[in-house]
């Protein structure tokens, strides 16, 4: 994994080679307006230092609440997942001498959402934990030591015990006396005893130094290193949303705008595709601009429209359909959950099959409707043509 700061520094260094690129820092965009000019209509970006930039092409890479997208009046649809993601940087002892270095990422699918452990260095890793909003806010405010223990438990304990520990944290939070680290340790020890987890096994969160000394226990590679503390000031959380702009290119009043990255689409961090999607947008856009420039085109003309939308349309389609399928098909989710050891979502196999069958019939029916509508309009076009040919023939004879 590369930390954002390093990535940004590398990119800035790369940009500084080009004299054509001018970076403006410590300046905000105050407003975006359309130029009031016949034959013009370029976007005017008003800056906080009083300057105004007239943009041939305004690229909205300005995040989920994109001001460029609202200027271009592009609708975005989507839904909240009712989940918040907690992120933090975790400290842990290095892997033991028999285990190799800390280069394995871990992800566990809990019923409330996945928790991920992403290595940064030998002794630190990054956390991304998506869970229910109230639990996320409780985990953010609780003693960081409790959070560290809870992370260890979340990778190790069965779901029943985890639910119990989560409820304890929430109850204590609501009663106004948050759990102390020692209290939470007692609760954790109690759950491990009742789950018959040996204190020497890798699944125990409590064994001191177990992961770094001597021959590792049998299951040591099945779980991440024991988190000993959380780096101060690294805990944050944000709500998770799925959203997708109706179009990546502004039209009408918002002409000469294009959206990339989170401004165009936000996805669940589950598979880490947010950054990749953004980079793919930029790659497609650059190809379009290059194509236009080499042929003397105006980079923001309809050519961009054709190319950017036609090259990325299948990707967009596949991406959104893929997500929809994942969202809609409880069966797949249930399968993921089952393999993740969840008891609650387990269904009888017959039930799963019926639901799948019902869903596919429903989809087929909507498809058929669409096809019929298309067929109707095609018939009209052909009808018009034949009629005009007929009229022409008739007048010729007369």
């Amino acid at each position, binding site marked *: 994994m590369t930390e954002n700061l390093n990535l940004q520094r590398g990119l800035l260094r790369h940009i500084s080679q080009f004299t054509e690129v001018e970076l403006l820092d410590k300046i905000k965009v105050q407003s975006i307006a359309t130029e009031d*000019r*016949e*034959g*013009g*209509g*370029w976007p005017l970006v008003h800056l906080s230092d009083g300057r105004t930039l*007239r943009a*041939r092409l305004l690229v909205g890479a300005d995040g989920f609440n994109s001001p460029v997208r609202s200027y271009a009046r592009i609708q975005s649809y989507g839904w909240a997942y009712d989940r918040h993601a907690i992120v933090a940087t975790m400290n842990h002892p290095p892997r033991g001498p028999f285990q190799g270095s800390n280069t394995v990422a871990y992800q566990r699918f809990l019923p409330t959402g996945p928790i991920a452990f992403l290595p940064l260095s030998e002794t630190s890793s990054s956390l991304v934990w998506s869970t229910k909003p109230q639990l996320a806010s409780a985990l953010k405010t609780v003693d960081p030591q409790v959070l560290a223990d809870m992370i260890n438990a979340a990778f190790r304990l069965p779901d029943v015990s985890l639910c119990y520990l989560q409820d304890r944290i929430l109850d204590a939070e609501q009663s106004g006396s948050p759990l102390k680290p020692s209290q939470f340790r007692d609760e954790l020890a109690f759950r491990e005893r009742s789950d018959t987890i040996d204190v020497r096994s890798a699944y125990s969160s409590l064994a001191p130094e177990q992961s770094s000394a001597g021959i590792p226990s049998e299951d040591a590679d099945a779980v991440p290193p024991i988190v000993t503390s959380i780096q101060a000031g690294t805990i944050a959380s944000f709500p998770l949303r799925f959203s997708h702009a109706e179009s990546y290119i502004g039209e009408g009043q918002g002409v000469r705008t294009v959206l990339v990255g989170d401004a165009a689409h936000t996805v669940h961090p589950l598979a880490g595709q947010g950054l990749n999607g953004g980079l793919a947008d930029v790659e497609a856009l650059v190809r379009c601009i290059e*194509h*236009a*420039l*080499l*042929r*003397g*085109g*105006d980079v923001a003309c309809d*050519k961009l429209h*054709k*190319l950017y939308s*036609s090259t990325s349309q299948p990707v967009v389609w596949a991406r959104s359909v893929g997500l929809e399928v994942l969202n809609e098909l409880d069966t797949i989710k249930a399968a993921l959950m089952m393999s993740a050891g969840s008891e609650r979502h387990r269904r009888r196999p017959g039930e799963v099959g019926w639901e799948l069958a019902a869903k596919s019939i429903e989809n087929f029916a909507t498809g058929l409707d669409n096809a019929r509508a298309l067929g109707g309009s095609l018939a009209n*076009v*052909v009808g*018009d*043509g034949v009629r*005009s*040919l007929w009229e*022409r023939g008739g007048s010729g004879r007369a």
Partner: protein
Amino acid sequence: MNPARIQFLRDKVTEIALDDDPNASVNPTRILRGLNVLDVGCGGGLLSESLTRLGANTLGIDASASNISIASLHASADPSLNFTSGISSLLPAHTTVHRGNKAEGKGTLTYTHTSVEELLIERGEGAFDIVCSMEVIEHVDNPRDFLDSCARLVKPGGHLLLSTIARTPLAYFLTIFAAEDLLGFVSKGTHTFSKYVNPEELEGFFRSYRSQSRPWISGPVAHRLQAETRGIIFVPWNNEWVLTPRGSKWAEGCNYLFWVRRPLE
């Protein structure tokens, strides 16, 4: 259509430059820089603007005053075009080149409401490195005179690029039946089938057309350094016009580009 036209023009100019001097360092993306280019029948200025962006000093002329004002309005919104409005183009050729000296390699753009015959009188023979005329010849009343005027404006060794529609059943079906009657993309009566020009007719014209007693096309088969025809077809699934491969005769049955070079003296 425009990107395909520009691509063909650029390819031909590059090819000729390399043929004239195989050791020349030719950069196809800069090949049009500094050349004097005339766009006859510029319409809204789509081709003229593209030529200017690639560095050519472009003059767009049109017989319709409203086309000129639409094109001027559009060009004046784009600062990279170094656009100046019409009157100055009436000056002799060398004065236009020195205008708008903003940056090295940037072209200039001028529009004038005039006809190619009047321009020939004003500027004289051989005033332009390249003369383009897109989708015009099928609308003019006297194609032979029109071709003659265009050809005279090309300097020796310069290029003439035409685009038009072949007189074939396919072209009738696509450009008149489909585009005008069926789909209404173009208003009715825009095209007259009998005025369409076949590639062989253009080739025949330049086989007998002479400058300084040298024919533009000689030999039994036109060498591709003298003239070349390329079809241009619409690919609906990409929603763009593309050049068809060299030598594919079937594709020249509708829209096509015709390039011919004036012989060197």
